[in-house]
């Protein structure tokens, strides 16, 4: 549905050339939800803006539904864009129009008859669950409601593709979930291809089938979300996965943490389970086998694409020898672990 071929984008800051995108190749299947993730400044926003040519690539092809957009004239491009919906981080609703009239805008632009606009907009209000907000101005809506209006507006011209530019980044976690559910619903009901960019791995994990990771304007890794979570090949991918499982040491533990093992102290260990880890109940096994008590401080395990992965902070309470043996055994099971220190 979307094919990005050898796309480069160079910005000039005075005489200095900045490669915002270098040689990006990406294919997005019809009917899928795909994500592009990257830190701020990685070029992901530039990339999605290249898909509807809000940003014209310096070189390369952008093929949407079989048409290479870079070869179109300005007028042809304008008409083609009507089949590519887009939503934004800051919603970009017209403050001078009510919810109804905001959603009607793309239809007005296309010169659709008033009666038809009315029925179409009312259907869309139903779809996004905002029937009661029909005549309200955007200023009186919450962020989540605004994004729903923006989604309805983007869907008004029956697009084949929906581009989401950080669509949930300005929303709180609960609202983010409800917007993601809405996106998933329209993906299924309308068989709409969705490409979203985000800096939150949680969003990708929530709804994407495929993910591309970009860093420094380069496509670092891409594939099925499950595969990436199970076998991240690059440090950047690992970093993003870890960011979904942020575990930090509680402050009172931090003050009690020693660098060396002393009398009556026990190691505090961070265990990282990845797709490569052996899929057996290792924790209880270690406790039994090596006669140590394991006190789990915090743990964040998840299951994506048939793989268990996650992070755990645990104290290994037992003799020094037993702890050493347990650590060696866990390493054999391909669990990455790090002794953070010794808790007095």
């Amino acid at each position: 549905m979307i094919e990005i071929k050898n796309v480069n984008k160079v910005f000039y800051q005075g005489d200095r050339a900045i490669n915002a995108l270098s040689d990006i190749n990406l294919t997005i299947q019809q009917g899928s939800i795909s994500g592009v993730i990257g830190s701020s400044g990685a070029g992901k926003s530039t990339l999605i803006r290249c898909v509807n040519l809000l940003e014209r690539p310096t070189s390369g092809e952008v093929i949407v539904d079989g048409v290479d957009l870079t070869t179109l004239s300005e007028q042809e491009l304008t008409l083609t864009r009507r089949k590519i919906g887009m939503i934004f981080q800051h919603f970009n609703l017209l403050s001078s129009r009510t919810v109804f009239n905001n959603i009607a805008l793309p239809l007005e632009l296309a010169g659709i008859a008033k009666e038809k606009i009315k029925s179409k907009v009312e259907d869309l209000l139903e779809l996004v669950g905002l029937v009661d907000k029909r005549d309200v101005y955007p200023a009186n809506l919450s962020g989540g409601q605004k994004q729903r209006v923006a989604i309805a507006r983007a869907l008004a011209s029956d697009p084949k593709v929906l581009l989401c530019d950080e669509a949930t980044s300005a929303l709180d976690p609960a609202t983010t979930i409800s917007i993601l559910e809405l996106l998933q619903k329209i993906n299924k009901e309308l068989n709409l291809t969705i490409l979203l960019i985000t800096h939150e791995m949680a969003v990708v994990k929530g709804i994407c089938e495929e993910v591309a990771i970009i860093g420094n304007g380069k496509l670092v890794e891409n594939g099925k979300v499950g595969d990436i979570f199970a076998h991240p090949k690059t440090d950047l991918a690992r970093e993003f996965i870890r960011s979904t499982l942020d575990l930090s040491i509680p402050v009172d533990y931090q003050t009690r943490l020693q660098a060396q093992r002393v009398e009556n102290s026990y190691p505090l260990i961070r265990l990282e389970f990845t797709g490569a880890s052996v899929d057996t109940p290792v924790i209880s096994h270690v406790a039994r086998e090596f006669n140590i008590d394991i006190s789990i401080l915090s743990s964040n395990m998840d299951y994506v694409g048939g793989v268990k992965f996650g992070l755990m902070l645990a104290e290994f309470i037992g003799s020094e020898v037993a702890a050493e043996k347990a650590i060696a055994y866990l390493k054999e099971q391909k669990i990455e672990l790090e002794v953070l220190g010794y808790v007095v």
Partner: protein
Amino acid sequence: MSFNAVITWWVENPRLIDLLVNSLWETIVMVFTSGFIGFVVGIPLGVLLHLSKKNGLLENTALNKVLGVVVNIGRSIPFIILLVALIPVTRFIVGSSIGTAAAIVPLTIGAIPFIARLVEGALLEVPAGLVEAAQAMGAKPIQIINKVLLPEALPGIINAITITLVTLVGYSAMAGTVGGGGLGDVGIRYGYQRFDGTVMMITIVILVVLVQLIQSVGDHLVKRVDHR
């Protein structure tokens, strides 16, 4: 007491009353006619200034520079000098350089660059994201102007109209110097040159009321259309 004095003055000076009513009408005609023509030319000029800017919707740096210079020249000439300098032009357009109709020419020409800059400023307040969203949904440039930029900038534009009309009330007083008539003219001729303090006061009061009226109507309209 002062109320009685006003009544007495009112009854005793029917000729002056006539003069004041006429000149109020002249002021209104001058301000609103030049204002209206000024908006018809100035608003599109402001839109063009905004669009032709670097990274604007219809980027054209050369055009933008030329328009900018022309507008700045118009804005930098003191109105009283413009009034006199334009006499040949006025004579060519109206056929005379004296009278209310003649005063409308320099008032309009003075107002156009003023309005253009104010409208440009109002358009600048429209978030760039809205234009981008409209582009993404396949809006043609003319649709972006009519359906996004102008409606979104409407509160600012109404504000610009209010400011312009108030400024024109002030400018119209100077139009008296070329025989344009109006309240300002009465104030100067009767109040200043004939030392008639009462007439001066009355013209000032009428002008203040007129300006207040324009401002309140403007503010009210802004409130009605502003949903930000």
